[in-house]
């Protein structure tokens, strides 16, 4: 298991939305240019956890997904 997977699992177990948003966002942005599906998959997770936690970052993430026709 790589470091990202371990960090994600730990954050999921802890219910740590802020960390989850950061990790998923970084993962999404890292692959978005070469793999839109994979990038938007990760960004969706970042968006959902930001939305759940009431983080202002949710709007930025939503805008990225809306621009690609993947969120309303």
């Amino acid at each position: 298991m790589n470091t990202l997977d371990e960090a994600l699992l730990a954050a999921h177990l802890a219910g740590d939305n802020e960390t989850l948003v950061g990790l998923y966002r970084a993962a999404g942005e890292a692959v978005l240019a070469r793999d839109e599906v994979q990038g938007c998959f990760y960004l969706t997770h970042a968006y959902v956890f930001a939305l759940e936690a009431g983080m202002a970052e949710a709007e930025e993430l939503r805008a990225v997904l809306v621009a690609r026709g993947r969120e309303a």
Partner: protein
Amino acid sequence: MTTANSDLSDVMQPVARAKGLPNAHYIDPAAFDEERKSVLFANWSGVGFAKDVPNEGDAMPVDFLGVPLLILRDHDGAVRVYQNTCRHRGMILVDEPRNIRGTIRCPYHSWCYGLDGQLRSTPHVGGPGQNIHEDIKRNELGLFEMRSHVWLGVVFVNVSAAAPDFDVVHADLIARWSEFDKPLYHSGADSSFKLDVACNWKLAVENYCESYHLPWVHPGLNSYSRLEDHYNIEENGRYSGQGTLVYRQLEGEDGKVFPDFEGVSDKWDTGAEYITVFPNVLLGVHRDHTFAIVLEPKEQGKTQEHVEIFYATEAAIGDGFSATRAKNTAQWEEVFKEDIFVVEGMQRGRLGPLFDGGKFSPAMDGATHVFHEWVAQSLSAGRQIAAE
């Protein structure tokens, strides 16, 4: 035993000739099921307390007769009640009381709902990373909101959504007690307790409504609050209960009494009233505090009583009154516990097949009869709807 043909005609006679509800309505699961729908869901029932969701985003799941509800405080500070069920696969959304910081995220596929019930996100609903789909219309898939109303700290719900508005149904009672329809203050665990009783929920109502039993069951109260100091409250088709003319404020060790409700009139100097908001909420009002008991019917012979005591001012819930509050809670708990053997005894008595609903005292049992007649009317209305 079945209730399909239970005869309610005797119940609806004037009190002098009436009988109580037939035994089946206390001991038969089929009758319990009929009342669940025709009495408790068709009317405005108490399901919880607004004080349990004090802050924006506080969410409290409640099971009301098998219906999963979510009591929630929204962004505007209003209490809302939703069905605690995701519109996608029917998953329970919130399992434990907690604060929702942003949205309610379903733990199954992460559909997210705002505090206003709107569906905000449907991740991967159109495939990986694709969160929209032409057939998923979010504006049609918000949480199911139940009709709800908060009065005197109690959250009422009309599950059937067919009853007239709460403030129309209970206009008279709201006017009667307008002096207490003010902010209420609750101090937490020291003003809260639950009692599990082995009886049908209606027996708790019936016992609460009448003062006839006071000298026999509550001799401690009778030392200052004699039977002749009480009056019956009988409002046919609306509510019933009892009042006292000799309420005496509790004093702390230092002789201090709880502060009064602001502007409370002289009528309440030594007056207090105890009324059932049909079907399942028992309320008491006094110049310095109120209480509410939400009866949670568990099954035909099991009820949980959720008791909460509220005060008139913020000062009353402060440290200066903690010992007096403890005394007040203990006093009420003792009174309500004294009632347990009678409600449980009446439950067991109804296993006797020769009991015919009972003979009312026209002078003393009118409040109980008003309740029975109201229940019978609700049942009749439910049967009429079922027959159409």
